[in-house]
């Protein structure tokens, strides 16, 4: 079982550049139903057997695509997200890195108003092992299983998932939510979905220094999330950002250090791993506690 993506996902790939075309093939071979690609001027062609269209609207009309993944270069990526959403995608996954933050603020708000879900930008995407991959993760390290994974990072997620898989803990769905200041869904949005997913028995939450998403998630878990959650936060030895102005500090109201996050998580009853190795132990304990 899984959330957001699975057997019913009909994916269109926006942007057949170097990365887009490479990963279109990878996703296809992983088993994802990649039904369309969108690249202006190439309508009528096929790529790796996938029909190509000039616009998302045409792609959705002709193929019934309901999900989109964005590989369009940063200056055009915000527009591409809107195009996918307005054409009819229920979920847009923006892999692209480097989109201006005010563009994303506008896009995220517009998608919220439309009821379209967004993962990313600047993210590795999502994978429901054995069922469907929408993004750029190396599929081989994932296995189906009961653990939901939500992370702000890409390669760190792989690091953790590899250990989980090696220890016999497969994943229901693993998500890289993206590392930008403004992203679509966050921990608590995914947790709401994991709460309803019978295939997910435990959630691993991988956080990092900066922002207060982890604190918000901790509060949400304490209030309404009834499955075990295990956490890991990186950035203890990260260099402090040379901060400019006070607005950021005023707005968050709380500290965005690792210590502050760990404290909030602990207060909400979420165990926090000290090391990557310890994550596996906590997962084992969490799942063991269920039986």
């Amino acid at each position, binding site marked *: 079982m899984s959330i957001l993506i699975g057997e019913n996902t009909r994916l269109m790939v926006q942007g057949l550049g170097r990365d887009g075309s490479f990963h279109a093939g990878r996703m296809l071979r992983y088993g994802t139903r990649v039904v369309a690609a969108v690249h202006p001027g190439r309508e009528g062609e096929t790529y790796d057997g996938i029909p190509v269209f000039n616009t998302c609207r045409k792609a959705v009309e002709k193929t019934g695509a309901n999900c989109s993944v964005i590989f369009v270069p940063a200056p055009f990526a915000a527009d591409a997200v809107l195009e996918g959403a307005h054409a009819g995608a229920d979920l847009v996954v923006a892999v692209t890195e480097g989109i201006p933050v005010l563009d994303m603020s506008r896009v995220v708000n517009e998608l919220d108003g439309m009821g379209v879900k967004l993962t990313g930008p600047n993210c*590795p995407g999502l994978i429901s092992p054995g069922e469907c991959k929408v993004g750029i993760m190396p599929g081989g390290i994932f296995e189906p299983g009961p653990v939901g994974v939500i992370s702000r990072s890409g*390669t*760190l997620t792989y690091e953790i998932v590899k250990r989980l898989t090696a220890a016999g803990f497969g994943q229901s769905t693993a998500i890289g939510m993206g590392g930008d*200041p403004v992203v679509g869904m966050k921990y608590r949005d995914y947790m709401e979905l994991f709460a309803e997913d019978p295939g997910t028995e435990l959630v691993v939450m991988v956080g990092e220094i900066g922002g207060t998403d982890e604190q918000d998630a901790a509060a949400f878990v304490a209030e309404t999330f009834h499955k075990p959650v295990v956490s890991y936060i*990186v950035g203890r*030895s990260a260099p402090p950002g040379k901060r400019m102005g*006070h607005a950021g500090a005023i707005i968050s109201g709380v500290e965005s250090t690792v210590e502050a996050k760990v404290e909030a998580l602990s207060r909400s009853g979420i165990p926090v791993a000290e090391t990557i190795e310890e994550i596996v132990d906590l997962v084992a304990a969490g799942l063991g506690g269920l039986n």
Partner: protein
Amino acid sequence: MKLEEFQAKKLFDEHGIPVPRGRMVTTVSGAEAAAEELGCPVVVKAQVKTGGRGKAGGVKLARTPREAGEAAGKILGMNIKGFVVERLLVDPALSVAGEYYLGITVDRKRKVPVMMVSASGGMDIEKVAAETPEKIFFHPVDPHKGLRFFEAKEMAFKVFQGKKNALDAASVMVKLWRCMNSLDATLVEINPLARLEDGMIIALDAKMVIDDNALFRHPDLESLRLPSPAELKELEARKHGLSYVRLDGEIGCMVNGAGLAMATMDVIKHLGGTPANFLDIGGSSNPEKVVHAMKLLVSDDNVKVIFVNVFGGITRCDDVANGLVKAVSTVDLKLPMVVRLTGTNEVEGIKILSEHGIKAFGDMTEAAREAILLAGKGGAGR
């Protein structure tokens, strides 16, 4: 891209926000001339891209051009939180009747720009936020509709007394938002926004951060980049697609992905070592990147060992291996190097390395232990 005060004030001015008519100078005589031209008293202000300048002695009042020169002499060359002062802003000293705070930044949580206004302006606004948060008013800005005058007016009447002050302040708010939006800033801040004794509302300080990702829309702003030596190195790294921040440790890290890079630093520290830097080579498979990254690491004299930690995803291990082989010969590497390589095309990558006598670890913790061990032997290889 952080701007210095004099740059931000110029951009504010272009958007109709009242600012003092100051002069940017780089020498003592320049400061004297500016004070002469503007008329004394003046304020001589260090131009550094960080806060806490006032407390560090980087802002001085001068009653005569000679005093302005003396102040400039003291401030130029000062090191404020790692920034060496090279430029000064000489502003006319104005008669201030009240100091307010006004700032807009993008709120990660609300996902929109949020404006903050307070009657408690001046130096300690973060203290105000922590101790008396009710003195700060917040207003989320709809990023499509922008900040409208009626919204600014509502905020202004909460903080400013009297029709003229409130409407003038509301006008500054709307212009500050327009400045932020039209230049793709992620932060604009005026602290203090002052009410002068003659009734004028004016920005006595100005902070502004431009979104690097949006500079393609504002090619003219690129010329405002005045990097400090440390920033210059980070900037050079950025040009090659690398994200680099120097620290003071011994283990030079090269990692793909910011999260894994932080985890690598954490594990080094957890095991008793000291990371020399944060270095994210990003998610593409270009061997040239690895060469540049290696050059960056060996240019730091503190570094005693190189630790490469790569988990292939988009990045392919064989590409990284090829890059490393090339890098080692290009920079004529004398330092010991520990490599951990796994993920996409792992087998091919490890084969390439072993052909060149480089051993690769599979587990990052083990690899980190080895790096710390080698660093302990300290520069033996040098």
